[in-house]
């Protein structure tokens, strides 16, 4: 497990997939032999939060082992938004570009590669809808909850919202968008007949694996860190302001 006294550089040596995550925190490379804590302080990043993220992305059972108390919803949401930005601005366009390259470098299978390109477009649209819903509805809601919890003041709008929608509903509707990605990987690995091009076919796959892992890590931050914190705050607010939820849970 990574700790605050380790050298930042060693984290990357251990798990190079952390590269894109470290950049998301606004930390550039070139940190010499500084420790994780020193680098985090330099860039005003909450060290505990940083460690939770890099550990959870590196050790599968991490979230089931650890308590998370040292950071706010504000910092979680800000990280999640940056992750969305990474999908939109970086990895999705990269994959599109690579599939296009694959198309251009293929002599046979052109029509089939085109199908895969369209399939990825479908996935992309699903991902964008998913992202938009979180950015427009879920994140503002959780930020409001944290604010109400901290100030012990609640607006009328939030009260109304809580009656109709709570973080539990979010967890229930939090959809699996990974299925298409899994299918695309299998289509490229197993079912697209051999192509004359190896290079781009492999590159597309590597990027798809990276995206898949990142999306999974992203959802587990939402489901295992953000949601439980909000759940507790909601419960406090429900009882503190005597709010009654409208729909009846059929549990």
């Amino acid at each position, binding site marked *: 497990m990574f700790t605050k006294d380790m050298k930042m550089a060693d984290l990357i040596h251990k798990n190079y997939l952390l590269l894109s995550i470290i950049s998301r925190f606004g930390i550039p490379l070139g940190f010499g032999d500084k420790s994780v804590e020193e680098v985090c302080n330099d860039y005003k990043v909450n060290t505990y939060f940083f460690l939770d993220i890099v550990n959870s992305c590196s050790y599968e059972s991490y979230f089931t082992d650890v308590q998370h108390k040292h950071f706010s919803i504000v910092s979680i949401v800000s990280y999640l938004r940056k992750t969305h930005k990474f999908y939109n601005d970086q990895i999705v366009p990269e994959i599109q570009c690579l599939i296009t390259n694959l198309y251009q470098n293929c002599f046979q299978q052109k029509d089939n590669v085109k*199908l895969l390109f369209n399939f990825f477009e479908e996935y992309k649209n699903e991902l964008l809808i998913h992202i938009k819903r979180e950015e427009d509805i879920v994140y503002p809601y959780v930020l409001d909850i944290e604010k109400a919890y901290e100030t012990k003041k609640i607006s009328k709008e939030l009260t109304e919202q809580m009656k109709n929608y709570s973080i539990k509903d979010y967890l229930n509707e939090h959809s699996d968008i990974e299925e298409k990605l899994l299918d695309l990987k299998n289509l490229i690995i197993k079912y697209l007949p051999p192509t004359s091009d190896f290079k781009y076919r492999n590159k597309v796959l590597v990027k798809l694996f990276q995206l898949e892992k990142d999306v999974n890590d992203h959802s587990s931050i939402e489901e295992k860190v953000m949601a439980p914190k909000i759940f507790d705050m909601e419960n406090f607010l429900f009882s503190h302001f005597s709010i009654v939820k409208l729909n009846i849970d059929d549990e």
Partner: protein
Amino acid sequence: MMSKLKFIIADKSFLVRRGLVCTIEEFESFEVVRELDNEKSLFKAIAKLSPDFVIINLNFYKSLRLKEFNSLTKKNKTKIIKLIDKNKDDVFFNETDYYIDINDSKSNIINQIKDITEQFLKSEKTSKNSILSNREKDVLRHIALGLTNKEVADKLFISIHTVVSHRKNITKKLDIHTVSGLTIYAILNKIIDIESSKS
């Protein structure tokens, strides 16, 4: 030589756990890799050991974070066997659920476990054979063209239930889960052509 089937036993009661461990270990081809009594160790053990089966007390099961538990077991291809008490638990089971009744006689319990593991081994075998049968290809063709289960059933003169079970097998064999993924598979394998897929 076949490797042993791995079991995890999850129950709050020490005595029940010991009883189960002894019963399971009477089978030469079975192995209990962990016994435990709380959610945290259960999640950890499944992630770490990916057992073939978890035998879990029904009430304990109900107290878990089910969504996560189910996705974890799905991911590790772990089958869940629920330990129930027919005298107390008011339960309605799907055919697909595996369970053991705590009040059963030794021979019944052993037979139940045998049945479950045999089903499991059979399904392992079929899933390794990834070639679709002709009937499955028929079903796939219609699904790929965008028909609903009901429509496929009417076209092929079979029940919806049969269509659903064909679909399950197709998905399992191909490891493709979405309709659009299946459509592309069908085109790549010339089960349908691109032109007809557009209509």
